[in-house]
């Protein structure tokens, strides 16, 4: 039972990840695909942060004068901080591409774009 509980966080992360994955592969609308990609991304962030947590630990900001304080692992935090900012950059770039596609094809649905391509 304790084993079951100790992996609970991972399972939620995986359910979220699969939600995002399903959105990406099953929806034709490109904005929806990007939202799905965001969900997927956030779930990966949460996975890393979960790994960095130490039970009974505190945020990794050194409190001067106090010894024997357990800090959670700061390395995943640093990595994910970088990843979030890179993520928002890619999202912005993707949305810009969607806008251009809309202007060129008049639609943001994937199959309609393909149909238009075949017609040309």
């Amino acid at each position: 039972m304790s084993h079951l509980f100790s992996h609970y966080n991972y399972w939620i992360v995986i359910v979220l990840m699969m939600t995002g994955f399903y959105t990406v592969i099953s929806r034709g609308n490109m904005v929806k695909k990007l939202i799905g990609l965001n969900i997927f991304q956030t779930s990966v962030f949460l996975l890393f942060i979960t790994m960095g947590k130490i039970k009974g630990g505190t945020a990794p900001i050194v409190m001067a004068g106090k010894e024997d304080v357990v800090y959670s692992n700061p390395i995943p935090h640093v990595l994910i901080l970088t990843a979030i900012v890179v993520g928002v950059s890619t999202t912005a770039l993707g949305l810009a591409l969607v806008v251009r596609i809309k202007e060129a094809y008049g639609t943001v649905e994937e199959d309609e774009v393909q149909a238009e391509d075949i017609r040309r």
Partner: protein
Amino acid sequence: MLVGTGITIIRQQNLLAASMLSGIYSLLSACWMVELDAVDVAFTEASVGAGISTVLMLATLALTTRSEKKPVHKSFLPLFVVLATGAALIYGTLGAPPYGDPANVVHHHVAPRYVNDSYDETGIPNIVTSVLASYRGYDTLGETSVVFTAGVGVLLLLKRGKRSKREEKK
């Protein structure tokens, strides 16, 4: 709650509501990150995910369309693929270290050095800041370049410069 919001997002046909919900989703995940002691990350996620991303999505929707078309063919292939991958991943977590255990391998390799020595070496109490800006300055430099490149890319894609105006006149 997070899962509920996520599933509502995919069920939602109205893209406007979906982007608002994704903002809420970001805020909820930021709350979870605070719970997991990652205050810096939660701060970033809240400001980036709930603030900037949502605004950008709304701006895109204003330029494109507000509602999604119903998928013409209902296919079970994506659902099947997703369920299979999910099952494989959950099987994989059974071998993963238990949550929050201080004896886990990740906490014993590089992290103790940062936790113990970074304050003495840099004089910066926030370990995340000192690792980000000092020990891993190269990473952050690269990341800033990525942000810069994204800005330039969006400008190139969307900005109507002088030349296109001239072409329109012709």
